[in-house]
């Protein structure tokens, strides 16, 4: 039976080297500015968490195999090799201390896209057998059960029934020819069932046709987090198959950061072809409905609200203004964090860090950066639109005894919809 080895790892690293990688490594001047953009370095002060240092294995492979200079150095035995020991050491740097938030990619003076190279490095790490257990387990479960948390349709079925009861609305399932296929994340199904109820209400309100799919209800992609194309592609193919089966023209990614980038940006490249449908984040859809006047709201939140931009949504996908349009629709006292949008700070849980039990402590340390940002603005509540971010914010704020509730933007919009039917109750508990 085949197994994951250093050789396979090195081959996988090599397969990831492309023009941008070569340009990036050629350009690095070791200025160290990336460290100042990384919450893991800023909050620990440990220089080993400097982003560019995390890329040393990939850099060595690029230099050794893709540069004339490296080949000459190899001839005289001066070129350092990547060893199993090295990769074992780098496992913590590439997984536990990096949420792939991409903030370093925004500040590097020579323009290096470090987050992209972390993503590429993880391909090699998986094949060399140096991925964290938590992520391996999630990947296995995702492929075997359809969900990284191992949850099954029957769990979702219970939630659907609950939503239908409380809202009095029908949750469409496997409805062929609907406009939108809605995907969810495990986190939403288990921790934030109010999300499903919120979109049910909003779509009903706006007259949007949509459906869930029993074949594929999860948009999360453990393959992206662990950094393996093969697993990731299998998971993307399920979405594509479900969308095609139901003949939808649009697919909505849930309020989950990596799920969105996985299906929106990486997906077509993982399967090697363009989709026959368009992919949207729920926030994009809601803002479009708002812009076209299909969402009518009433009442305003009056407390001081601030917002956490999920990295995958804002910095890595360009959805920045939409959530502000939406929050301003229903809140009159909204204030942005000082560094937001493409320069926002990561909550510390992304990029698979939250699925990696070993990284628990680092994850909380990195959160201190977010905490400091929140303390500057002193909001009464935080709004966000990513289940992982939301969980991390809630846990972190609790850990540091800050009494600031965290709410999902979609639910907040749903709460303010103009009541069209007198029969429906206000909201679920």
């Amino acid at each position: 039976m085949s197994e994951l080895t250093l050789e396979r790892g090195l081959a996988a690293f090599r397969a990831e080297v492309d023009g941008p990688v070569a340009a990036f490594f050629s350009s690095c001047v070791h200025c160290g500015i990336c460290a100042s953009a990384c919450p893991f370095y800023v909050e620990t002060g440990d220089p080993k968490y400097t982003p560019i240092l995390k890329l040393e294995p990939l850099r060595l492979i690029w230099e050794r195999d893709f540069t004339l200079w490296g080949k000459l150095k190899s001839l005289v035995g001066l070129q350092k090799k990547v060893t199993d020991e090295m990769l074992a050491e780098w496992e913590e740097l590439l997984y536990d201390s990096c949420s792939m938030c991409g903030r370093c990619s925004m500040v590097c003076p020579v323009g290096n896209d470090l987050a992209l190279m972390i993503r590429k490095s993880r391909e090699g790490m998986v094949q060399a057998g140096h991925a964290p257990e938590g992520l391996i387990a999630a990947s296995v479960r995702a492929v075997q059960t359809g969900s990284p948390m191992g949850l099954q349709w029957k769990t979702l079925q219970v939630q659907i029934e609950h939503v239908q009861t409380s809202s009095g609305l029908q949750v469409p399932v496997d409805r062929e020819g609907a406009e939108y296929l809605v995907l969810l994340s495990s986190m939403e199904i288990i921790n934030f069932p109010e999300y499903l109820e919120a979109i049910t209400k909003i779509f009903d309100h706006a007259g949007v046709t949509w459906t869930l799919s029993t074949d594929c209800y999860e948009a999360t992609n453990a393959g992206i987090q662990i950094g393996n194309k093969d697993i990731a592609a299998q998971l993307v193919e399920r979405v594509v198959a479900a969308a095609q089966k139901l003949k939808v023209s649009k697919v909505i990614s849930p309020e989950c950061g990596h799920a969105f980038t996985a299906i929106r940006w990486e997906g077509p490249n993982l399967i090697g072809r363009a989709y026959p449908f368009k992919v949207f984040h729920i926030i994009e859809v809601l803002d479009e409905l708002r812009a076209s006047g299909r969402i009518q709201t009433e009442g305003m939140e009056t407390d001081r609200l601030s917002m956490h931009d999920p990295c995958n949504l804002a910095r890595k996908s360009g959805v920045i203004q939409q959530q502000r349009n939406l929050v301003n629709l229903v809140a009159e006292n909204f204030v942005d964090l000082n560094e937001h949008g493409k320069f926002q700070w990561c909550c510390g849980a992304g990029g698979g860090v939250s699925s990696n039990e070993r990284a628990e402590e680092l994850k909380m340390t990195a959160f201190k950066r977010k905490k400091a940002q929140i303390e500057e603005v002193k909001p009464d509540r935080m709004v966000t639109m990513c289940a992982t971010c939301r969980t991390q914010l809630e846990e972190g704020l609790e850990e540091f005894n800050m009494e600031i509730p965290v709410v999902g933007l979609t639910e907040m919009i749903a709460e303010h919809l103009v009541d069209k039917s007198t029969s429906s109750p206000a909201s679920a508990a």
Partner: protein
Amino acid sequence: MSGSMEFLLWTKGPMFDIAIAIFAIGLLVRIAEIFMLGRAKNFAEPRAGEWKPGLTTVVTRSFADPGTFKRAPFNVVVGWIWHVGFLIALLLFLPHIELIKSLTGLSWPALPNPLISLVTAVTLIALIATLVHRMTHPVKRRISTLEDYLVWTVVFAVVLTGWLAYTRMVNPYPLILGMHILAAEIMLIILPFTKLTHIFTAVIARWYNGAAYGRKGVQS
């Protein structure tokens, strides 16, 4: 017979040809390596084009965002000072313009020499500051390699010998001028094989970065 004038003529003659050849070949190999690797076709539906955001990033990445400026002011300010100082001395000092003109036929007006001298002196101080920073800041100390110190030494030697030659503080002049030219030639020779390549590849790197993010709707 080998004295300072013979040394100068060697640096202006055969050594210059060698340096230019190694530089040109090395750099083109380097750039060809990058472009031949290329990028895989991207099937994801773009939000925006690549060229404009790519070119914008090439320019805007020269300026730090306010947060970075606040958190790494030394890097930003001193880095700027010495880069700008180096470029002014390189491109606006009359003897350098004459050199460029002899190679390319292109020329432009020069700055007065004493101004160049002042700028060079400031550049030298800034370079020393970067070295101290590299040896003391925990991140920079950790990520620095032998190459970083080698490149610093060569760059510093180029600026220092140039300044000493201009101020004529070393006698005989052909010796210090020859040392300056040799230092510049060493810089040219190592350029394609060290991080000095960033002079040329940073433009490419910034473009790739700006294009990748711009495609997704973010001006990086």
